[in-house]
């Protein structure tokens, strides 16, 4: 099933204040991580609609990462709490629909956690790679 030379495509939806800044710090610190991730910046995880994740899969993502501020750290005080609730349900929904949860990742990465970001990205990519190309979703295309 795994094509030769196939690399997973990961879309990361991250908040502007913590995770995006954490990813910037990883750059400033010249940490190295795998390149298969494309970041989409949003003001807050609270802005992230489950449809974003569905759309990313539709457009060929093999995995999705959603990441924001640690609880209590939200720049908007509670956006991440709202997000956390949504994720709890949405994740269960995806699981129930039979989507391999190795493709959907959630994390808190603060602006200072460059190392965590690096390890996270490598790990997420590895996990998604182990799940293989998301052919099942691509087959839904007419």
């Amino acid at each position, binding site marked *: 099933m795994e094509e030769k030379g196939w690399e997973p495509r990961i879309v990361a939806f991250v908040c502007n204040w913590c995770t995006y800044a954490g990813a910037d710090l990883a750059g400033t610190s010249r940490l190295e991580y795998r390149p298969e991730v494309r970041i989409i910046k949003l003001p807050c995880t609270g802005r992230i609609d489950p449809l974003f994740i569905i759309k990313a899969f539709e457009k060929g993502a093999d995995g999705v990462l959603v990441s924001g501020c640690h609880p209590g750290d939200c720049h908007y005080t509670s956006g991440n709490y709202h997000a956390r*609730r949504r994720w709890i349900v949405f994740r269960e*929904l995806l699981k129930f629909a039979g989507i391999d949860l190795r493709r959907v990742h959630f994390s808190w990465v603060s602006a200072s956690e460059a190392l965590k970001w690096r390890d996270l990205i490598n790990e997420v990519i590895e996990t998604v790679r182990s799940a293989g190309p998301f052919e099942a979703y691509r087959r839904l295309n007419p």
Partner: protein
Amino acid sequence: MDREKKLREKARELLESKEVDLVIGYGWTRYGKRVAPVFITRPEDVDRLIWNPMCVNNLTLYITRKYPDVKAMGRPAVVVKGCDAKTVNVLIQEGQLKREDVVLLGIPCEGVVYRQELYDGEVTKENVSPKCVVCDVKNPPLYDHLIGEKVEEGSGFEGARNIYQEIEELDKKPEGERWAFWMEHFERCIRCYACRQICPLCYCERCIAEKNMPQWIDTSAHGRGNVAWNLKRAMDLAGRCVFCGECERACPVNIPLNLINQKLSMVVEESFNHRPGYESEGHPPLIVYSLEDREDFIR
């Protein structure tokens, strides 16, 4: 039937006293032996009202913002079963309705049929609606007038299809099988939106499916669009769905929507200790949060 008589009496009384302008209830259709929603405005028509196990529709649908012409008819009384009454609580929670805007004629219910054509004079474990098998609101939790005596709670449909068990069994399967199960169903979806149209909680002025800048959900009835539509609808009902079961009943291609909606209800109850429809205070669980929400899946 006793309840039927009492229902008609109450309806007549309400209409005659002008307490309401309209009674939304159930009545026979002209042909066949089907039951359909009826709108009674004159006291002399109250005898069209009936009550039997074929009265499956959730009539609170007609008091939502989707029916401005029904609203224009004046103050309504609505015949509600326990499950239907729960909808009213959610509608109140969501600012769609004020309690005093409607008179609820609560009917203690001992089970209705899944589909009318299956009814043969008796509700059996084969033809009973799945919601009734696990029902805990035989007596409406909310009403203005109770039609007849209360009945004993608890389900009597031993051996009938149990939605929670089915969910559990589906949960146990490997995800590949679950995916195949749902894709087989979703691919058959014809995007008639009957699920949405019959749902009293799908009251959006403009459904996300009709939004085209951007078009989040493809309107074509192909796998991609169908999955997006069905997942989005399930997500939007999470923590709100009261399990009236109407969407699955209305689905012309038999997609087991109850499974997905009740699965999320279970998740919501487990995670946030919330059961929609039992009270009108508070907020739907997905727009509030708790500092203690679980996050074992978040890294």
